Each structure stands twice: as C-alpha cells, then as structure tokens.
C-alpha cells in the first residue's frame, strides 16, 4: 500500500499552495484532482485558438498591499506570475444604469478615497470613516500578513456587524452605499449577510491595485507544476477519495481512491467545496450535527459568463480594464435570486497575443443564481435541452446589448465566441451548484476550516476563510502553519522571503 505524509485533495489554487508548501518542507505529498487536469478554476480554455479565463479574471494584492506577492515569493514563483495592472481611471469604472451616471477611479487606496470625496463633497465624514475602518481592519488582521508572528486572533467587533448595518450607520446616500459595496461581486455575498470585517479584508487590496495576470490562471498552473517536479510531489488526476476506511479513535486508517487503490497518510487536506467534503465522509458516517452544519451553508453567487471578441481592426489593443454595470442603486436588491433580468454585469477587457496577432477580448460576467438554471440540473454538458440553449442565447444577447449601451463604439464589432452558465461551471469544476466563490461568507458562520470530522482530516480552500485567489492561498498557508508546527513554518517563511 502506498504511503504518503500528506494527501491534498483538489488542485485549485489552495490545493496547489498547500501541496507545494508541504513538499518544500520535505514531506511526501500526493495531490489528487477529480478532473482530467489540475488547476480548477485557474485553468483557461481555448476556443478558436483564443484563450479565455474560467474563474480567475483579476485580483488585488500585487501592489502596496503585498499579501499576494509575499505568498508568491515564499513559493518561489513570483517571477512566473506577471501582473498586468489596471492603470487608467477609464479602465476602473462603475456605471449606474438607472441614473445614467458613471464613476471612475485611479488605483490606490488613498486615491480612491480622495476621488470618492470629490464625487460626494457633502459626505466627508462618512467617506473618511469608511476608509479608515476598512484600513484598520485590514491592518489588524494578522493572518493576512504572512510576515507576522501571530497567535489566533479573537473576532473583531466588525466581524459581527454586517456591511449593510455599517453603511446604514454612515450615510443615507444610496449611491455612495452602492459604491462602498461595489466589490461585493468579488466575494459573492450580499451586504446584509457579509460582515463589515470580511468585506474590508477583501476590498482593501482591490482599492490598492487591480491586476490581471499574463496568461491568466495558466501562469499559476505552469509555475506550480515546475515546482512540483523539484519536490517530487505526486499528482493523480481523474482521482478522488471514494471512502475513508479503518477508522480508529477518530482517525482515518486508509484512504480509498475511486480506482480502488488504498493509501495510508498522516494527514489528508481537503481543499474542495464543503459539500463535496461531506460527500467524501459520507453522511451516514458523520453526526447529524456535522451534516446539518455543512448542508446549512448557502452557496455564493455565480456568474453567467460570455466570451466575446472585439473584431474592430481600428481598435487599439485593450488595456486591462474592468467596467461594472449596476442596473439598480441597491446592492442587496441586486443579489435577490428572484431577479431574472439585468443583474450586475462585470465587463473585463484585455488583449491577448495569439498566432494571428493581437486580439481584443471581453469577458462579460453577469451575476447569476442556481435557480436560473435549476430546471436543467439533470442534464450534462453537450446534452442540454433546446430550452436551455434558448436561455443561453437570450441572456447572451441581452448582455451584448448592455455592453453596447455602455460602449457604443463596439457596435457591430462584438463576436460572441462562447458562453457559460452555472451548469457549465458545475460540470467542469465539480462544484455542486456552479457557484463562483464556494459558500457565502455569512456573519457568525462556522466555516469548515482546520481539522474536521477526523483527527487526520483537514479543510481549507476558498470557502474556509475568504474567497478569491488571495483568500484561497491564505487558507493553504494557515493550514500548513498548523501541520508543520508553528516554529518550522515561521523559519520557512522567513528563509524564503529572504531568498526571494
């Protein structure tokens, strides 16, 4: 029977991070992935020779707030990941469709504050308070600074106040409130349900800088793969744990894979969706309390994604840019699953070098909920009904119309290459309902994080602490801090940061 120190389940960015840190610390690691290739939603896909991003479109953390750069340095992959910054205010834009009003911002936390003050001169107090609170929460969250030597922190007061409550206490200006919560699309939980603290932890770095990455998520996958070779990390794709056997004293003795082979391991770290973890443990082997807890998690929002090429030959290469359209001036309303049309639409522009030269691309993603596609849940990729195809066609057309309204100069030049619904994401990413950020990060919730169910099984991933690339990677770092013991981990971080 094969023996490993650690099995890491799931090869999204949190699984990749966890496996690499453990491997770099002389542990024998096996990384398993249910899909045919590693990378999860980092993977790009190609259509007509054009690369499109699946789940990783842009991130913060590359400038001023260095959380992401620090993590990449520790993993020695910093040079492989080239940020392409959003530079110009017209490329960082929020449009309120119902008021025909647009707001643009330069990059930088202080700059955002200054420009917000210029837009709303009568809201000085609200704006100053909001920005100083966001900053102080971010700075006081020690887990977000991997250089810090910290003990577990008790929750902050702002962990039990919702974003909505905080904004209501700051101002009555609806437009300002929507702007303050504008990045809710980047964590997938509405202002009435997410804590002000978690909102701040995610948005701070997005105020500081927004960047795409050259070659998208594939740059990460390639960099990790190279490192895995160096540390002899084994990878098995098309593989998952089908059962946990020989349980004694609450410890799993044998991990059985879907191909029937059996493995021994000191630890097994699950970086997959919490509901997929529950499935692996099998509900009949867990307490009702555990399964109720996991089944009680609510899925985050998802997206309906449209992949478009701008065919205008006179169009200059797109700078990396993001424009978000808000149909209503009320963020909570825009998260309502009953809304079927004109949901917030995020339009990401970039240009890609291909064999046929530079091409201008638009990834447009519109907020979506499971109930939009639930009717076709029993179908699988390539075998969907005519009604489903009609749903996709209509939604894609409406999205294009909204893009043209925001960018009249694109009229006649939008070539839709493909589109993806939450069902597509479900089926390609083994995610129970195709949500974009795993579960919602609700106030007072106990996420699956750290040791769960058995003494040698652990949970990490973007549902564990915070969503997105930064949150997912952080969950891997935090788990390794525990598995390697604090002293070993701190030395490792220090040495790596000095080296890189």
């Amino acid at each position: 029977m094969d023996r490993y120190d650690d099995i890491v389940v799931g090869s999204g960015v949190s699984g990749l991070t966890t496996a690499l840190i453990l491997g770099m610390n002389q542990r024998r690691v096996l990384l398993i992935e249910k899909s045919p290739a590693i990378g999860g939603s980092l993977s790009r896909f190609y259509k007509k020779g054009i690369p499109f991003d699946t789940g990783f479109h842009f991130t913060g953390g590359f400038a001023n707030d260095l959380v992401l750069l620090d993590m990449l340095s520790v993993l020695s992959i910093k040079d492989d990941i080239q940020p392409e910054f959003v530079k110009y205010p017209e490329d960082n834009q929020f449009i309120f469709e119902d008021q025909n009003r647009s707001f643009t911002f330069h990059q930088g936390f202080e700059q955002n504050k200054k420009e917000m003050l210029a837009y709303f001169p009568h809201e000085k107090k609200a704006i100053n308070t909001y920005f100083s609170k966001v900053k102080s929460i971010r700075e006081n969250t020690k887990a977000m600074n991997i250089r810090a030597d910290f003990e577990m922190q008790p929750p902050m007061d702002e962990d039990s106040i919702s974003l909505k409550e905080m904004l209501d206490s700051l101002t009555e200006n609806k437009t300002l409130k929507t702007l303050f919560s504008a990045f809710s699309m980047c964590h997938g939980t509405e202002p009435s349900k997410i804590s002000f603290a978690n909102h701040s932890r995610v948005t701070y770095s997005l105020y500081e800088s927004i960047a795409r990455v050259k070659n998208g998520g594939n740059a990460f996958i390639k960099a990790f793969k190279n490192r895995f070779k160096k540390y002899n990390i084994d990878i098995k794709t098309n593989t998952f744990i089908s059962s946990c056997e020989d349980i004694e004293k609450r410890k799993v003795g044998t991990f059985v894979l879907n191909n029937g082979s059996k493995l021994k391991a000191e630890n097994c770290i699950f970086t997959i969706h919490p509901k997929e973890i529950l499935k692996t443990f099998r509900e009949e082997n867990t307490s009702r309390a555990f399964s109720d807890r996991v089944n009680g998690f609510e899925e985050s929002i998802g997206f309906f994604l449209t992949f478009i090429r701008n065919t205008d030959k006179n169009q200059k290469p797109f700078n990396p840019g993001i424009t978000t359209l808000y149909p209503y001036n009320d963020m909570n309303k825009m998260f309502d699953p009953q809304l079927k049309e004109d949901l917030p639409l995020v339009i990401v522009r970039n240009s890609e070098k291909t064999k046929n030269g530079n091409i201008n691309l638009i990834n447009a993603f519109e907020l979506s909920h499971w109930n939009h596609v639930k009717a076709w849940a029993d179908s699988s990729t390539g075998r969907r009904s005519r009604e489903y195809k009609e749903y996709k066609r209509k939604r894609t057309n409406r999205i294009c119309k909204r893009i043209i309204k925001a960018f009249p100069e694109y009229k006649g030049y939008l070539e839709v290459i493909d589109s993806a619904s939450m069902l597509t994401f479900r089926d390609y990413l083994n995610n129970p309902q195709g949500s974009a950020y795993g579960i919602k990060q609700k106030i007072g919730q106990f996420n699956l994080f750290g040791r769960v169910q058995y003494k040698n099984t652990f949970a990490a991933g973007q549902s564990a602490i915070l969503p997105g690339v930064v949150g997912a990677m952080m969950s891997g770092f935090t788990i390794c801090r525990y598995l390697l013991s604090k002293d070993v981990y701190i030395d490792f971080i220090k040495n790596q940061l000095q080296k890189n």
Partner: protein
Amino acid sequence: MSDQIETMINEVFEESFEIEKEDLKPEANIFEDLGLDSLDVVDLVVALQKKFSVEIRTDERIKDIRTLEDLSKFIKELKSES
C-alpha cells in the same frame, strides 16, 4: 421553563449526535460519558445556537462546560441575559 431547556438540550444530543435517551443524565460528562470528541464541539455549538437562537460563538464560558448540567446552566444564563 428550566425543564424545557434541559429537554431541548437532550433533544440536540439525541437528534444531532444519536445518543440514547437513558444516557442523558444531568451529571453525564459530554466527552467522557457521551463520547463526543473535541472535533464535535463546533458542530455542537452550531446545533445549540440554532435550537436556542442564541450567540455562543465568542463566549468564554463554554470552555468550562463539562456536563449536561453545566450546559443547561450556561444556556439559562445566556437566555436570562438576552
């Protein structure tokens, strides 16, 4: 009222952890007698929060709870505070 709280706590142990009714005595130690593991604590807290609509998460007093009696005393205190 107090009996009702004890009954509700017992229900949590019966329904959520499949523990036999006759084992649920006030002096029963949650870990040694009822067989819960430290791994079950978060699940227990979540189940109790739901059952009693209270916030237990950040309360320091939960660390001292050993028996079912301790637990019902704690819930009663919480209820009287709110």
